[in-house]
């Protein structure tokens, strides 16, 4: 596979650069907040802070680069966000010293934190405010590992861009903002002043990003003056021309389109550390007009387009995810920030969305083999098999990308959640698997919900056996339960109780962000923030969704199936006796545990006994959350995905009735319990399709194949048909790990030889060697399908 010298150099540089924590943003922001004396509204203050950052941050253009701009002072320098969550010195030491996914913190940075940043922000960050506002019940449940909360250290911002930036420059946005300002009705609209401030803030933010690009244009010209190489001189001049034009004006060509997006990406991720996944979305469709026009005019070739895209890809890979604080810093092990580029699907008019740029992008994905950006194919029944098959050729090379989504079902999901049909068609998946209307929706993942933990508490009448604390409701002595219905009823009450606690917390947190941390730059990019004159955090978006992600569905299904089978149908043991066994963690009960593992109906085998229980759990979770109002005029909905939290959730959850040993990982996504499925992939797909994916905002299914399965062309055809069938059954998403267990074990023993081994974790790919031992073991354990 041919890669140009330029790309080889930039790619290598990106792979080899060490991740470092940069205090630059924190220092600048502290300086800004210290010097600021004038009294201004929160949105304007945030816009001025944004402007200040973009005016003062270091900028650099790497040798040979065509697309320019870094979030930090240089590549892989990750900025921090003390106004949101301020790293303590301990946090910095953990990040610096930990074995996996570390961030180097040099002594100067540490010193800056100690002397300037921490003294200023201590007790004043959003995180401090959030923990101050949460109830005792919330804190107890949070500490017990019943749920997590994303917003305690990352701003809401989970959204993806649509096509508007390819049609409008920032000056056009400013004109729209001015028009809205001129229309404000100060006589009858009590919100007029608030709108005015928000719109002014957006105006400032738009100007700030134009100025930021001009700094790059100037730098490029300066560099060209000192450059000896004629070719590079021309490139630098071209960079200057591009940066002088975008983002001020709408892009005129392929290069400008990519550079414009990149400035926007930097703006959004410098303004706040938005959780997460900001991405250009349907890139093949956005770029198509520029590609065709360039080719037709003879200004662009396939090769040039490909090289520009490769430069663009490397830019994503240069940005490690924001370094976390607190427990999350110790547990969260990934540099990935989940930007997911969508390919295929349908166009706004509902016709097949696959085009020549789709295939070009697939070539880029295959050649780049980078962790970031993450990529997905959106498979519609209208797309040709050739498209899916081309993607399977990349999947079989085993780096977990692209992941595969059901575009037609995503359309249904979005429409069910209230989107117009056109907005739904322009939407897609982002982050791990969650869906949204691109460019028009604020959809936030707010945290994971540990279903098996809640069940454990149910089996102990509201008490967490790990700590002996009473956390839940008293739903009765479980030893007295006479039927499955009583068990399920008690579980449902506990789920509702903890979901209430979580939702109350979310509703407060949403308001805190709306009041104290508006994001005017992101707001101007998302419809209808400008026309409403409202901030993205305050309900400005056309659609506003709050997601809570359920974890451990497979474990729950098998646990309940086990109780149903052994207690209520076969009377193998009494309910009380079963709970006693769980409390001993099966010590000395290995034979019995084997019976639970091997002689009990399990989810994932197309066995209705277990699968019916799974759908009951699904309905309980769905009913507890779906349709509740949030504070932004939208609703709560569910997804079922774990990222890596099933490991953490497992570590706080005792033995479960399915035979799972205490403190070991839970099942992930909607996948069956690791190793519980033994009837092959078609049975897994049938089981998983029994839940109503259309009523979720995303589910995640992992399947693992050894490379041999996909070696032949026929094997790939079968994979295409397997995907198509799962989607006929209305499955939402499927992803494939193509690697054998032997390779994984070798990689565990000799990580140095397998640094580049990328595996699918859960909704994203990661370097196998960067994962914790537990997670590595778990990936090895996930059922290997030898053939189908």
């Amino acid at each position, binding site marked *: 596979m041919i890669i140009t010298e330029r790309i080889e150099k930039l790619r290598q540089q990106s792979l080899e650069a060490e991740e470092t924590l940069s205090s630059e943003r924190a220092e600048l922001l502290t300086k800004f907040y210290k010097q600021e004396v004038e009294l201004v509204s929160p949105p304007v203050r945030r816009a001025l802070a944004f402007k200040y950052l973009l005016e003062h941050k270091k900028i650099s253009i790497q040798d040979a680069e065509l697309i320019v701009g870094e979030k930090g002072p240089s590549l892989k320098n990750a900025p921090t966000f003390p106004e949101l969550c301020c790293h303590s010195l301990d946090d910095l030491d953990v990040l610096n010293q930990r074995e996996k996914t570390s961030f180097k913190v040099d002594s100067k940075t540490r010193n800056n934190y100690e002397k300037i940043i921490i003294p200023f922000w201590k007790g004043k960050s959003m995180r401090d405010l959030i923990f101050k506002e949460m109830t005792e019940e919330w804190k107890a449940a949070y500490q017990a590992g019943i749920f997590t909360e994303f917003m305690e250290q990352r701003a809401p911002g989970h959204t993806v861009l649509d096509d508007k930036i390819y049609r409008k420059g920032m000056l056009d946005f400013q004109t729209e903002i001015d028009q809205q300002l001129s229309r404000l009705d100060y006589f009858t609209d009590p919100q007029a002043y608030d709108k005015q401030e928000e719109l002014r803030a957006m105006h400032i933010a738009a100007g700030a990003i134009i100025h930021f690009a001009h700094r790059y244009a100037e730098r490029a010209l300066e560099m060209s003056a000192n450059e000896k190489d004629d070719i590079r001189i021309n490139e630098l001049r071209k960079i200057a021309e591009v940066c002088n034009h975008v983002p001020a004006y709408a892009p005129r060509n392929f290069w400008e389109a990519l550079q414009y997006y990149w400035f926007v990406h930097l703006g959004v991720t410098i303004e706040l550390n938005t959780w997460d996944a900001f991405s250009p979305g349907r890139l093949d469709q956005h770029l198509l007009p520029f590609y065709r026009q360039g080719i037709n005019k003879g200004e662009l070739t396939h090769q040039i387009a490909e090289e520009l895209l490769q430069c663009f890809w490397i830019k994503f890979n240069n940005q490690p995810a924001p370094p976390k604080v607190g427990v999350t810093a110790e547990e969260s092990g990934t540099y990935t920030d989940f930007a997911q580029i969508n390919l295929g699907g349908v166009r706004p008019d509902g016709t097949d969305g696959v085009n020549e740029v789709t295939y070009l992008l697939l070539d880029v994905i295959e050649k780049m083999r980078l962790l970031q950006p993450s990529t997905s194919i959106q498979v519609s029944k209208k797309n040709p098999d050739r498209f899916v098959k081309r993607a399977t050729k990349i999947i079989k090379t085993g780096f977990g990308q692209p992941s595969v989504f059901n575009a037609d079902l995503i359309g249904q999901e979005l429409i069910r959640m209230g989107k117009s049909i056109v907005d739904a068609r322009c939407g897609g998946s982002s982050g791990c698997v969650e869906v949204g209307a691109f460019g028009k929706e604020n959809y936030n993942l707010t945290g994971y919900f540990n279903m098996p933990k809640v069940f454990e508490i149910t089996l102990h009448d509201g008490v967490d056996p790990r700590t002996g604390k009473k956390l839940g409701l008293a739903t009765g002595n479980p030893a007295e339960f006479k039927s499955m219905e009583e068990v399920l009823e008690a579980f449902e009450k506990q789920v509702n109780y903890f979901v209430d606690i979580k939702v109350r917390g979310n509703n407060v947190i949403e308001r805190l962000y709306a009041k104290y941390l508006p994001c005017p730059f992101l707001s101007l990019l998302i419809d209808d923030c400008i026309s409403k004159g409202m901030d993205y955090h305050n309900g400005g978006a056309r659609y506003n969704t709050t997601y809570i992600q359920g974890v451990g569905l497979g474990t729950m299904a098998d646990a309940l199936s086990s109780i149903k089978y052994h207690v209520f149908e076969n009377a193998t043991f009494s309910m009380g006796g079963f709970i006693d066994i769980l409390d001993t963690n099966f010590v000395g009960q290995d034979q019995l545990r084997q019976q639970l593992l091997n002689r009990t109906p399990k989810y994932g085998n197309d066995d209705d006994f277990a699968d019916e229980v799974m759908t009951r759990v699904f309905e309980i979770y769905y009913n507890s959350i779906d349709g509740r109002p949030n504070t932004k005029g939208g609703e709560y909905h569910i997804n079922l995905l774990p990222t890596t939290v099933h490991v953490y959730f497992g570590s706080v959850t005792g033995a479960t009735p399915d035979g799972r040993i205490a403190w070991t990982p839970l099942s992930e996504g909607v996948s069956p319990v690791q190793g519980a499925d033994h009837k092959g992939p*078609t049975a897994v797909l049938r089981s998983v399709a029994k839940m109503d994916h259309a009523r979720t905002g995303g589910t995640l299914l992992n399947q693992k194949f050894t490379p041999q399965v996909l070696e032949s062309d026929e094997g790939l055809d079968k994979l295409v048909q397997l995907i198509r069938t799962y989607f006929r059954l209305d499955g939402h998403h499927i992803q494939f790990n193509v690697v054998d267990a032997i390779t994984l074990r070798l990689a565990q023993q000799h990580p140095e030889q397998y640094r580049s081994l990328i595996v699918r974790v859960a909704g994203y790919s990661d370097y196998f060697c960067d994962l914790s031992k537990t997670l590595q073991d778990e990936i090895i354990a996930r059922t290997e399908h030898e053939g189908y």
Partner: protein
Amino acid sequence: MVGSIVTVAQLMDEIERDIPFFDQSRGGVTFTGGEPMFQREFLLESLLACKEQGIHTIVDTSGYTSWDGFEQIHSYVDIFLYDLKLMDESRHKQYTSVSNHMILDNLKKLSSAKASIIVRIPLIPGVNDDYENIHQSASFLADLPHLDGVELIPYHEIGLAKYQALGMNNKLKEIKPVSRQHIEEVEQILYKYHLPLYKDSIGRIL
């Protein structure tokens, strides 16, 4: 499912689960063996049940059974995979211990009845890969009133390890796989007889 005794209803319960996959990939059920024709009643009932569900059916057979068996089932079979091993009767007896008379006769009758047939010739060096047998086979097939395809199944050694693992004596262990060149020669002969040769399709392992 290996080695278990099931009723037609139980079998159909397993099969019907895969209907969405069949519909999508235009797949279906292949009855193979052993020799499915030796379980005639079960086969017939299963085929009828499949047809009731609109499931595509294939029967993989050696052809060594009385004609009335084929007569009963052929309307419910979408494709027969039909083995043709050796044309010479005495050589056929030598290697399979039975005459090929009934096998060839059934094939002619099935063809006359317009059943869809793919004939499969296992190509075993030193056993049936000589030009004489190939020409005889090709000539016989060319005379059939109707034939959908011919496939060569060259001998391979994938099964050796299995014989070993099961502690069984493999009578073919001295035989080496057919060379690519010889396969092509045989194919050329089949082409000369204008036979519809299938390559890399159903059942082809190498």
